[in-house]
């Protein structure tokens, strides 16, 4: 029972975090802020949802597969975000800066 409640809390927190990340990538004004929203929420959302599913599964093969998916996502998601930011910066895309209400830079 306790495990069920913990699992649902994890799953709902993960879903909410996913929606927050989606709103962030849809409404933020700049590429880097969009990448910030997507990159931060992606890893924690995946972690919470996979942990909730793992609590539902118990000690089975499915839980091991979920742990494997989590390890892959945990290493590849920040790497992909870093590669994206690096490529955008090297291609000359400038962050949009706002100072005293006026746009500075592009």
């Amino acid at each position, binding site marked *: 029972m306790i495990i069920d409640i913990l699992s*649902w809390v994890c*799953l*709902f927190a*993960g*879903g*909410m975090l*996913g*929606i927050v*990340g*989606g*709103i962030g*990538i*849809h409404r933020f004004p700049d*590429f880097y802020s*969009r*990448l910030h929203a*997507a990159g931060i929420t*992606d890893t924690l*959302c*995946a972690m919470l*949802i*996979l942990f*909730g*599913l793992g609590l*539902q*599964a118990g000690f*089975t*093969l*499915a839980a091991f*597969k*979920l742990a*494997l*998916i989590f390890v*892959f*996502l945990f290493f*590849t*998601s920040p*790497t*992909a*975000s870093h*590669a*994206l930011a690096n*490529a*955008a910066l*090297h*291609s000359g*895309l400038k962050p949009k800066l706002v100072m005293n209400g006026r746009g500075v830079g592009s």
Partner: protein
Amino acid sequence: MFIAVSLAILITMGLALARALTGPTTYDRIAAVNMFGTKTVLLIAVLAFLSGRTDLLDIALVYALINFIGVVAALKLVTQKNFHSSGEKERKVE
């Protein structure tokens, strides 16, 4: 309960797809597609538990691998315009 979580993931995928369709730069589109792929992995995992067939987790595992390779390959194609050159300046062949 699994249905609510899968609906939340579907809403997120819709928002990411809207950004991928309207993104001003190519990097916006690649970031949105990366997020879309991660959410697809999570959706497959939730659907595996929703339908009670945990064999689908293998597909989610393969999708997680292919997503990363695809994003890095798309980035290399965008930044260097081809697949055959290394990151450094090419030497002249005598």
